[in-house]
């Protein structure tokens, strides 16, 4: 990990409150796998003090570029969304352990919910490069919030659900999974905790990798803000840190809620 100034190549909305930012810089050379994240300082003022953890949606080591897809929801990400091309941003990363691509040889199911969808894109690209067949199930709240459906379709079969039924199937990713009864070797997922819990309950004996989210302080394991209890520890103090041990965990490795 390094702290570096990266140049904004582009920063534009791709769905309601969802922005896509392309960044260029040497930091990209250090990314080792899909599912890692960076911590961004939106500007050099103190009022929005902390860095914002944002997952890496795509990276290209040859071009030194990476793409972040983020939701402009709080004050920090809103300020980030107003940044223009050629401006510089203070980026710290890459951080965390991402998705293990090599765990799949033949067929993978990728399940994403809302702003959990972005890191699955680079994962899917790398799986396809390795000759793996990928199936995507993506869930969004409503049609206006849907993004990257076309991009995922180009990589493999893609199912979309919206809660209000304005796009794709009405319901959640679990409705699609229950209906389609996919066969797969590995399931990779990122999204809201209730979705992750439903997946954990549905596939307790499968090879599943889940990416978790939490409010973070430092992003490097020093502040103990983003911990989860481990399931195996009897003495009540066993834990893993989402920022450094995760954000991707094998099913059963940690409790999903703290």
């Amino acid at each position, binding site marked *: 990990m390094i702290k570096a100034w990266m140049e904004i190549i582009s920063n534009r909305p791709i769905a309601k409150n969802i922005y896509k930012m392309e960044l260029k810089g040497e930091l990209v050379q250090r990314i080792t796998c899909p599912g890692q994240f960076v911590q961004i300082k939106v500007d050099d003022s103190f*009022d929005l003090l*902390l860095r914002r953890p944002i997952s890496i949606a795509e990276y290209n080591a040859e071009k030194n570029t990476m793409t972040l897809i983020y939701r402009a929801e709080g004050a920090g990400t809103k300020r980030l969304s107003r940044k223009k091309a050629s401006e510089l941003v203070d980026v710290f990363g890459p951080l965390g352990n991402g998705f293990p691509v090599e765990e799949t040889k033949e067929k993978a199911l990728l399940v994403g919910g809302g702003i959990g969808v972005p890191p699955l894109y680079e994962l899917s690209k790398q799986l396809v490069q390795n000759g793996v067949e990928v199936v995507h199930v993506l869930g969004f709240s409503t049609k206006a919030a849907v993004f990257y459906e076309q991009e995922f379709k180009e990589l493999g079969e893609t199912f979309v659900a919206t809660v209000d039924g304005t796009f794709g199937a009405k319901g959640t990713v679990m409705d699609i999974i229950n209906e389609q009864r996919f066969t797969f070797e590995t399931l990779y997922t990122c999204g809201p905790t209730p979705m992750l819990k439903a997946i954990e309950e549905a596939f307790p004996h499968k090879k599943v990798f889940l990416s978790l989210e*939490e409010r973070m*302080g*430092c992003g*490097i*394991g020093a502040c103990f*803000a983003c911990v989860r209890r481990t399931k195996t520890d009897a003495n*009540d*103090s066993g834990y893993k840190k989402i920022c450094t041990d995760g954000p991707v965990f094998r099913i059963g490795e940690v409790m999903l809620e703290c």
Partner: protein
Amino acid sequence: MLAVKLPGLELKNPIMPASGCFGFGREFAKLYDLSKLGAIMIKATTLEPRFGNPTPRVAETPSGMLNAIGLQNPGLKKVMEEELPWLSQFDVPIIANIAGSTVEEYVEVAKEISKAPNVKALELNISCPNVKQGGIMFGTVPEVAGHLTEAVKNVSSVPVYVKLSPNVTDIVAMAKAVEKAGADGITMINTLLGMRIDVKTGRSIIANGTGGLSGPAVKPIAVRMIYQVSQSVEIPVIGMGGIMNVDDCIEFLQAGAKAVAIGTANFVNPYVCVELIDALPNRLKELGFDHVNECVGRSWKDEKSSSNSCP
């Protein structure tokens, strides 16, 4: 120009990471050489391992953050057997922050941890606002703080610094009580008790309900309290509370601190401690100082000398 001598501590420079913001140093050792630091205040250690509070444990606030980690730590045994020996590879004195639920627990931790060769001082944590027992309950009543300080002093092999809570009406009374009880120094301030509510749910964002406020938002309070305390006691003060840049460091020294600790800023810029150590000499020169000690207490020393010279 930067070397500072304090009870038990020969500091290469007056800048150190504050307890709870630096773990046991392992994460930051990947970023720079920890031997550059004046000292390291390690994460609070309790007798038994503690998991701490439920999450979310942090929330950002204007120019600051709330935290309620709840003293998560691996316990005395692991700190003695793994963390402190690992830290001994660096040429840097360790200030061991200790916490407990009872006087007996503090005493037991102090007795053992002060025997570690690289632990040069203890920092008595009587000011953690995020645990139900211990911590702040020892830090808000002068007699209770004095009694605990005395008990720990009796067993410690190294000088004892007491970390004061700002969540009191009379910080000077607290400082005087621990000085009288034998404290060798004071570190201040810990976090201020605060809260942030999610307007959509109507509930506190931090699972613990309340949390400790830190960052630049608390800096004026820290400066004021150090200004008051450093004039009222003979023992040295190590100052902390929202330091972000080199001028903040100098401000704390001028308020009366002899050294400073950096907390929340480590999360914003993980290289901040070494950047400040590198920047300090030039800034001191610009301001006309030959040694960092010349800044200490300048705010009130000048005040006193100028009032003396008034006709």
